[in-house]
């Protein structure tokens, strides 16, 4: 174990190189005891990498480092170990090591990845949250990348329903990136886990992020893309899922919405369509429950002017000016109606003076 931990901690030696080394030397322990000359003889190692390996041997206290990792509450898995998930073992370019803070996904349950654009619309946020919530409610586990936007809302939805959710990061598991998701990070730790193939303390660098998508799709059964532009990072996840033979679902959007282009394209190419969250969970054969939490609010509670304004609102944020024009109400009255609707929890202010429906 300590040798494997050492092997995954050599700067400049990534998972591809490690697999090449293992193919020739057998195991991490054997690699550790190779002499410099022997290393040089191995194929596929640059001088710099040989240097990095010998260097690492000098300044790495095997026992101490491994004990420290255990103490920090981060568990370590490598593909040389039995407990390494088989879902990951068989994929192309399988990660050599896995660091886990919190729990590992429960492979006896259905696991669904909910991914999408970082800069997403209000519609995207709502859909991601609803899907996450519904899935968790039906007993499935939600995986995502804890990025801003869709990813975060997928997690938030699952947490809202009290389910487990897992985030695969492109940096060390002890680093919360983006920092603004600190609260989410902690919530996920207590209801699921944070997973990464990179050792703790690895800084978030842009190049590392696309690669983690292969782990997200490999760990799940189904991948849902909520919002993606025509060329979006989320489509990388879809490509991986396709390669790994997973089911892909996409949330459709309007033809004119550039944020839904990627999703609509996926549907055109044969991805499953999520025309309603209920149908989607039925497709997944998750019938766990008949929930009545949603859509049953009593519209009778609204007064006439309130329901008029409510009818003008949708998931697309509408500005105050637009509402004034549509309804013909004057300003003081409109402000009053909107505040009442907010108080009754029917709508919310998504941005300064922009309002959306709350479902």
């Amino acid at each position: 174990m300590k040798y494997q931990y050492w092997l995954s901690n050599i700067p400049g030696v990534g998972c591809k190189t490690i697999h090449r080394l293992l193919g020739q030397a057998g195991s991490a322990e054997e690699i550790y005891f190779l002499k410099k000359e022997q290393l040089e003889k191995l194929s596929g190692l640059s001088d710099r990498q040989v240097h990095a390996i010998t260097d690492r041997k000098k300044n790495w206290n095997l026992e101490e480092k491994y004990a420290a990792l255990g103490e920090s509450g981060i568990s370590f898995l490598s593909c040389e170990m039995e407990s390494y998930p088989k879902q990951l073992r068989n994929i192309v370019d399988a990660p050599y090591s896995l660091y886990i803070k919190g729990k590992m996904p429960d492979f006896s349950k259905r696991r669904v990845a909910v991914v999408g654009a970082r800069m997403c619309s209000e519609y995207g946020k709502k859909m991601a949250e609803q899907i996450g919530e519904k899935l968790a409610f039906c007993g499935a586990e939600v995986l995502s990348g804890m990025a801003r936007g869709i990813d975060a809302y997928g997690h938030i939805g699952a947490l809202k329903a009290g389910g487990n959710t897992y985030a695969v990061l492109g940096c060390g598991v002890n680093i919360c990136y983006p920092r603004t998701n600190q609260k989410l990070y902690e919530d996920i730790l207590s209801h699921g886990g944070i997973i990464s193939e990179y050792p703790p303390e690895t800084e978030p660098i842009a190049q590392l992020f696309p690669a983690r998508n292969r782990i997200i799709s490999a760990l799940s059964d189904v991948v849902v893309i909520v919002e993606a532009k025509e060329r979006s990072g989320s489509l990388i996840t879809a490509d991986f899922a396709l390669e790994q033979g997973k089911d892909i679902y996409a949330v459709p959007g309007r033809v004119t919405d550039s944020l839904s282009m990627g999703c609509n394209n996926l549907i055109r190419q044969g991805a499953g369509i999520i025309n309603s969250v209920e149908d989607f969970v039925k497709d997944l054969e998750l019938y766990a429950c008949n929930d009545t939490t949603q859509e049953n609010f009593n519209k009778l509670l609204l007064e006439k002017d309130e329901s008029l304004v409510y009818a003008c609102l949708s998931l697309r944020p509408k500005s105050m000016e637009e509402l004034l024009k549509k309804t013909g109400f004057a300003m003081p009255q409109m402000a009053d109606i909107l505040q009442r609707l907010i108080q009754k929890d029917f709508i919310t202010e998504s941005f300064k003076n922009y309002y959306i429906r709350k479902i």
Partner: protein
Amino acid sequence: MYSLVTTSIIQGIKSIPVYVEADVSDGMPLFEMVGSLSPEVKESKERVRTALKNTGYILPPKRITINFIPANIRKTGSGFDLPVVAAVLCAIGIVPEEALKDTMVVGEISLSGEVKPVNGILPMVAEAKERGVTRCIVPAENHTEAQLVKEIEIFAVQSIAEMIHILNGGTYIEKEIGKAVAKTIRMLDFSDIQGQHFVKRACEVAVSGMHNLLMIGPPGAGKTMTAMRIPTILPPLDEKEQMELSKIYSVSGQFQLREQLMEERPFRCPHHTITTQGLVGGGLIPKPGEISLAHKGVLFLDELPEFKQNTIEILRQPMEEKEVRLVRVNGTYEYPADFILVAAMNPCKCGYYPDMQKCRCTAASIERYINRISQPLLDRIDICVETPQIKFEELNGTKKEECSDTIRERVIEVHAIQKKRYQKEDFQFNSQIPAARIAEYCALSKDQGKYMKKIYKQLNLTARSYHKILKVARTLADMDGTENILDAHLNEAVCYRNIDKRFWRDSL
């Protein structure tokens, strides 16, 4: 022989009397000037000698000493040339002594003996009148400005020869110098703006309670257009205010050839590259900055996040005190700066957030953009509204919109209500209610208190932002003419509450 001439120096927008003494006595031929003089005043010596020669008077080969009283004020500026000439002429007996009694002389001269205009004539003449001066000799080009002060005799002279002529009892012929600036006819009106009812309403509320305003919106939403029209709904200036404003412009040399006091409320929109000195005033010899030029009017800061942070931070003290105080070695300069701050900004760098179809910004770039706004400045803005993009149909709308005069009449009424309510206080408007008096002037009923408590928690308000909501609600109640704040007023005030950077970030 000895002579004494009265003149004036500007400090801030006030003018301080200065006396120029001249003495001609026997001794080595010499022309000396003393009395805490700055280089440009010292140079006056050469100008005076040559100009007199070119006018036809040769200085006698005697010891001529000029002294400036009081000696503890540093004499700066170019207006001392003419008084020195007058004093010398009097001392050598060309001008009678009694002619200079109760007369103020100001002006710069050229070598040919022509008299050139100076800045700050208006405050000088106004102050001279209060001091009991009965006549003023000023440069011809400052004539229109000087005669705005009533009940004082003004002689506008073009040359030294003309001054000598007048001081010797010659007839004064009034003449037209340059083209007077025509009385500005207001071209802007709120009825020019189609639609945008929300922003218009916010402007009216802001002006009614003298609240500062922030507009957030994409490019081309009419933020600048709206801001430019805000002065048109402010009540007209009274005579005292007009005089004060005209003095500021006079001192900064921007009064031009107006034939009356400034009646229009000023609208100043400095570019975001402006320096601290340009904004609040300053320099070695202090000059009023943009905030003083916006006195009693509107200071519009377009592209707020683009302004340098320290330039904006410096606004805090003048906004509280309604004046700028610049302390220099040679004295303290005070400029009034009582203005409504109107600021405009885009919601993100490209300007289209939260329209995700158009916005090309990343979350990080939006956050950087927001971080550029100064929180202390935001704290001084009571009303914040969003201005959406204008649709084509609206742009070409023919609907009759309310004109500025109608709005202005309502504003005048609301101002009257506030003036009456606060007549015993040292503040005048709702926006100026100090925190300690809010409970008294913005009293809420028990139910309203409960309701606001809920809102306070829901919106994560701070004490400061809560107070701002109450102050705006007070203004809304005044606009409705109600004694107490009603629920609807609170609800509307909540809509105008300022942006919260935290809230902004969370919505990303």
